[in-house]
């Protein structure tokens, strides 16, 4: 079973980034009123960085991410500049954990973290239904493993 993050995960990440950008901009504007308006120039690289992450990095990050679950193990792949692949054998997995924030709940997505012996891998937000499917699948595979 291969699961990829939906497009709305990208939108969610962009919203989060937007909030951070607005907060930082607010701080810069406030400080410029206190000290010098020259500080407002800092908004230019900040805005450029926001545009770069928003329109270049996030779409590529989303399309590069995939979670592959089989009876053998879980493989989580992601990365734009540095490609990373985490491979966790199912039998070495200890527990799974789903995390939902108010924003991600509104988008119907959640992240799943796989905790193994000396390992923890967290996926970017995927559809809640997909997360449930993965968790159930791993539960079944582990149960089969215990029986063996």
């Amino acid at each position, binding site marked *: 079973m291969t699961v990829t993050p939906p497009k709305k995960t990208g939108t969610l990440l962009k919203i989060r980034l937007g909030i951070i950008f607005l907060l930082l901009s607010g701080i810069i504007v406030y400080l410029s009123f206190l000290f010098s308006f020259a500080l407002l120039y800092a908004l230019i690289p900040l805005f450029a960085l926001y545009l770069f992450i928003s329109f270049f990095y996030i779409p590529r990050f989303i399309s590069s991410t995939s979670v592959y679950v089989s009876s053998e193990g879980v493989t989580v792949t992601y990365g734009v500049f540095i490609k990373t692949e985490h491979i966790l054998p199912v039998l070495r997995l200890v527990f799974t*954990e*789903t995390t*939902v924030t108010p924003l991600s709940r509104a988008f119907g997505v959640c992240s799943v973290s796989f905790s193994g012996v000396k390992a923890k891998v967290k996926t970017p937000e995927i559809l809640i239904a997909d997360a449930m499917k993965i968790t159930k699948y791993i539960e079944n595979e582990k149960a089969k493993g215990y029986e063996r």
Partner: protein
Amino acid sequence: MNDNTLFKAHPVFIYNMLKRFVFVLILPVLKGAVQYVLYRRISGVILLESVALVFILFLSVWRLVSFRIVIKDDYLYITDGVIIKKRAALPIAEISTITVTADFILDLLKAKNVSINTESGIYGKKDFSFKLYKTDVDRLLDMVYGKKPQIEVRFTAEKIALLSATASSALTGLIVGGPIIYRLGKLLNIGVLAVLNDITELSKSIKSYFPPIVNAITIAFIAVYGVSFLVALARNMFFRISVGGKRVEIKSGLYYKRQRTFLVSSVKDVCIAQTPLMRAFRIYTMRVGIGGYGGENGEKSTVVPAMTKKDLKSGFSSLFPVLNCKTEFINPKKDSFSRRRFLLLPNIYALLIFGITAGLIILLPSFERLFLFGGLVSLGFDLYFGFISVKKQNTGGISFGEEVVAKGISGYTYYEMYTKKNNIGKITVKRYPVDVIQNTCRVSVAVRSESADKVKVLVLPYEKLKNKIEKVYGIKSH
């Protein structure tokens, strides 16, 4: 197990929830500070503080109400959080230990601290920690581990005292007792210096060759050791172990009750240890290593406080069959050259002690008796180290088979570690130039989990050991 049982947190758990949000209370204070710096006036801080308090109280109550543990189909589902909601699906088979603790306040409120540990997670940090009703804790343990153990072994007061005495150190006493003495001194309006003066006065009354400072140090050392002993005694009081089916339960504590439950199958290794004090009484302690990262005690649990080795093996071999194994040991070489190798460090230390003591006496003759005392104490330790080094050669050994048994001495403590061959995580074979000449090696075996037991054996015949590892694990050394 097809139950679908729900557990809710005890209301006292709200305290833990509140602790996480305390930082919110700092924000109005910060706002007030900034306001004062900018406008030289403060307004609305109390109102904001009240709003923040109501806010964190509301969040904590909401979080407490939404916290739940559900046991369903051999899984433990733990749901926590309100703004960021987390739901962990933990297979019961993956639980290493469940530690239950309670101080007298929790006892009064009929609540208990529960921490669930697995092999995953961060070392030194409990994986899941919460507070439940006393009755719920028993229900939870029964559901996770099966019925309550029926056979209970209690230990006599002397054995508990022995365990406490051997587990205590003057350093612990200083850490624990120091602040108490300081506070007490302040309360009674006597400073620490006054206490030290009293100790010096008392030591002056003891007649000996050595100066009063030596007696003062000795009295202070015994006093802090006494504090440490009392703390350890309170911790180990009412120590008992219950065994039933596959479940083992260890309880102890006077003011702070601790209960640790685990499955026999979670045990990675059994370790029999003997500290110098125990050696004087010819008794041993036994503890087990469990493959889960816990809190205070890490992964080790003391199973037996004090017993003779014969009683330990006969009494617990049915619970831990690994104790029964009979295998051929590879022992350190016994020739005189090897003996000299074992005694090399104690000899070097002895020369250093003689040299330093003599040098100090020549340089500062007025402190002659003090340096002599220091030298004699160090020499005493070194003599004991020499005795231990000889013991290392005589009693050390390792055996590889379906079970791995390693006997060695670390520091001043003797260890005998029993484990299944598959539970060994790492075997390290080291050879120094003298080992190459003598065709020997030193080997250390560590159990498969972080912070677990590790035993080192020196001057072992290299070829014999290499062949044995190759035969048991099928790994050739290059």
